């Protein structure tokens, strides 16, 4: 009897595991916020390592493919946060808590600022997750020191940019901007295309982008709503920022 019982319980467990709903796919629905219904499209899929990842589209809020945070999935339901989509700190961002329904849909609540609104999501197709743009390494021709200048609000800024490849083999760098004061920023995300280069300093929401050649990077400095033209040239040997 004992021998029979053990395999039976194991079989039950396996059945339960196999029956766990798969949240992978494209889900669409509307958070019924009173007077301001909020449509959303959620994409969920597992990575080859089995980790659940997702992104969201918010039609009408100019959000396309913002990553989901704190995704949790269980036999009972699904939850995730929307800090990136709303550009809000995690504790102030909307949270979604959903439960599986008999018809395969997910129903629950949209939670934010101490309030809740009903939300139901229907599966409408396969997942189409937007993955962040992958960082790249820098080719040797771009490594080293560059200098340039731009004007913002009538004040000139002198820029010294030092580009390198980090320990992980991806592009990185240091940026020194000298205007009324001196600011040092770490370049932490680099994308080098065949002709176009993008350098980001996430800590200051600061970006330099433009076309590059062996001795010249010509483009724009972008920070928040501000944009200014910049030309960076190879620094003379021994020059200091």
């Amino acid at each position, binding site marked *: 009897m004992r021998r029979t019982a053990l395999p039976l319980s194991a079989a039950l467990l396996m059945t339960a595991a196999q029956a766990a709903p798969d949240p992978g796919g494209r889900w669409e629905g509307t958070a019924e916020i009173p007077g301001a219904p909020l449509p959303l499209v959620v994409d969920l899929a597992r990575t080859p390592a089995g980790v659940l990842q997702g992104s969201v589209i918010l*039609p009408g809020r100019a959000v396309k493919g913002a990553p989901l945070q704190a995704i949790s999935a269980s036999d009972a339901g699904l939850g995730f946060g929307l800090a990136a989509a709303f550009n809000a700190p995690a504790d102030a961002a909307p949270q979604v808590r959903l439960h599986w329904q008999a018809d395969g849909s997910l129903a629950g609540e949209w939670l934010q600022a101490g309030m809740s609104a009903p939300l139901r999501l229907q599966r409408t197709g396969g997942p189409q997750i937007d993955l962040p743009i992958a960082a790249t390494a820098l080719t040797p021709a771009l490594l080293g020191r560059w200098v340039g200048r731009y004007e913002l609000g009538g004040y000139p800024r002198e820029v010294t940019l030092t580009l390198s490849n980090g320990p992980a083999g991806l592009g990185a760098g240091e940026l020194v901007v000298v205007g009324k004061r001196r600011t040092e920023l770490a370049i932490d995300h680099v994308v080098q295309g065949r002709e*176009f280069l993008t350098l980001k300093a996430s800590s200051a929401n600061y970006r330099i982008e433009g*076309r590059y050649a062996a001795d010249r990077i010509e483009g*724009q400095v972008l920070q928040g709503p501000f*944009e200014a*033209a910049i030309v960076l040239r190879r620094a003379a040997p021994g020059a200091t920022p």
Partner: protein
Amino acid sequence: MKHNVLTALVLAATTALPAAAQGTYRGDVAHTGVLQTQAPRQFKQVKWSFPTGQRIVSSPVWSDGALLFGSDDGNLYSVDAASGRQRWMLATRGPLASTPAVAAGRVYALSFDGGLYAANATTGELLWKFATEGERRFEARGLHGSLPRSQTFADPFDTYLSSPLVADGRVYFGSSDGHVYALDAASGALLWKHRTGDVVHASPAYADGRIYVGGWDGKLYALNAKTGEQAWAFQAGVDPLMHNQQGFQSSPAVVGGVVYSGCRDGHVYALDAATGRELWNHNTNGSWVNSSPAVSAGQVHVATSDSALYKVLDAKTGQLVREHGVQAYVFSSPTIAGDVVLLGVLNGVLQARDKASGALLWEFQTEASRTNRGWVLTADKRFNGALLFPSSWHEGMAQGAERQQGVGSFFSTPLVVGGVVYIGSADGRMYALE
């Protein structure tokens, strides 16, 4: 066997032609609005819809089996036409309210962030970016009767940015900074710029070494495509009181040495392309003509805004051949594909009409239009004016305009490839209809 091979080659050539010709706004550089393909005469189903983060006013163009279009969420998209799945997405920093142009493997589009972007059409890799002096909507004091009259208002009905045009290795486009630009298509280097009197949001058309484009100063310009030198400028109506009956939002079509364009001054114009002399005008009794004309078989197809009419005019005389009520404002432009005319309407309905008779063949209505939340539309799909505009004071007009678009308005102009109709909606979705 030889005969079969020849037939196959001819078939392949005629099938390939439309796709190659549909990489630009209005189908070709002269902006005829005529596609060398057949639109469906019956509607079967929505093949797919692709959601973006904001309204779509940009029109789709075709490149290698993909649709390229912008969204007001700031992204330029490439979506596989067969599956409706995204191939790539390029982020800009402002609403992408222009229609892209594809040429020589590159795609060009203008964003409200002030950048004219050039990217690899296959991969989406950014190649270069040209900065204008800034993009914005047309604005004026007391615009359209807004109160207080002493305050400047941005026009909520100034929907589009100029869609670039590529010809002879140059990219041409208008800008809110008042210039018409010509850039080197390969490098983005400025070749010339021509100063106009106000924002330029229409798209230039090209014919016989000249480009033609109108601006919000009420002038339609003919410029030497190589040098930017002005050949002539035609002055349409101006409205110094309310700035309502003024400006070219419509993009011109150039056919047979004649430039055809709608205007917000309540007219459709036909001008001699060589001299700028007015050949005829058609009076719409004050109703804006924001849609761009399509010209085919000696007839001009246009649509009006407030009077909500689809009109067919004789191309030689401007005489009205016939007109049909379409229930709501039209900003989208007629697309002629075979014996069908497609027309997007701001009430969230796409109409397919018989080209010869104008008879309605089929309609597609967005879900938002069917739901009609807040009674934006009347029961017969007209705008419910009594409820739309709360006041002429402050931002009342902008609020009303935003409510109108809540029904999934079609600002976008339809594209047809392989019997499938593609069009973007203010509900943020690109639709594939078959």
